[in-house]
């Protein structure tokens, strides 16, 4: 089971509290822009032909918010992320057929967003460590039911 120190819990909550509503939309848009092969998962989303189109695409934004909703469940269940995400992991594997490498790419974009928004004093090395640990646990839980 994953161990969280008090400092880590506090730093993760700090980042979560400051991310804001545009985190999901922006992070997903960036993922689709920076790693263009991920567009294959969103062929029903309409216009993804340029960064501007992606940033302005309402389906991307809505889906970004859905993803952050999923992350919120992990924030509220930090001591049992694996079980919390079990059905989500099954769904991504069996129904959506998402290559699990892509979870890491999206989590990296979320981290870049957090870094941009919070700046170097707030998103310092300790906060970065806690936040990335949290996201790797989420990624690992999402990969868990793949085999």
């Amino acid at each position, binding site marked *: 089971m994953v161990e969280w120190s008090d400092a880590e819990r506090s730093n993760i909550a700090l980042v979560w509290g400051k991310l804001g509503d545009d985190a999901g939309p922006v992070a997903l848009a960036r993922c689709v*822009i920076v790693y263009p092969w991920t567009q294959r998962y969103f062929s029903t989303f309409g216009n993804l032909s340029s960064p501007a189109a992606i940033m302005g695409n309402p389906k991307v934004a809505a889906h970004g918010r859905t993803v952050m909703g999923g992350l919120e469940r992990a924030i509220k269940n930090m001591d049992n992320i694996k079980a919390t995400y079990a059905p989500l992991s099954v769904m991504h594997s069996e129904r959506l057929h998402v290559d699990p490498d892509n979870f890491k790419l999206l989590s990296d974009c979320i981290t*870049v967003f957090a870094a*941009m928004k919070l*700046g170097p004093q707030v*998103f310092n*090395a300790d906060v970065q460590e806690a936040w990335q640990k949290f996201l790797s646990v989420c990624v690992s839980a999402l990969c868990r039911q793949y085999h």
Partner: protein
Amino acid sequence: MVEWSAAERKIVADVWGKISIDEIGPQALARLLIVYPWTQRYFASFGDLSSAGAVLGNPKVSEHGKTVLGALDKAVKNMDDIKGLYAKLSKMHYDKLNVDPDNFRLLADCLSIVVATKFGSAFSPEVQATWQKFLSVVVAALTSKYF
């Protein structure tokens, strides 16, 4: 050979022009050692790395951060042959330093995060995509003599 559009060349030059090697190098290397603590094994002669505070204040870490960014400066100025430029550096990291090449990617990630904290919204999706492409080329070049 890696293709760079005019826009990409401009972005890399612009980002590099706004970065201070003395400021960003130490921060990125310190974050690497803190967020991915196993990397400390490569710096056993650096003295006190026992806490985030110690790493951030360690003068050898700071010095070495500047050395690494100094080498990146050469890549920025020779974007059309980063592989050739880094051939000897790659061999040295392989033969002499025995660095696991996964760690190059981790340092590149820390560098992107530090740049993101500093640039905020100026680290647009296009800038992020181009900057990360540049760093992946650097990482590939550093790995090229490993096998």
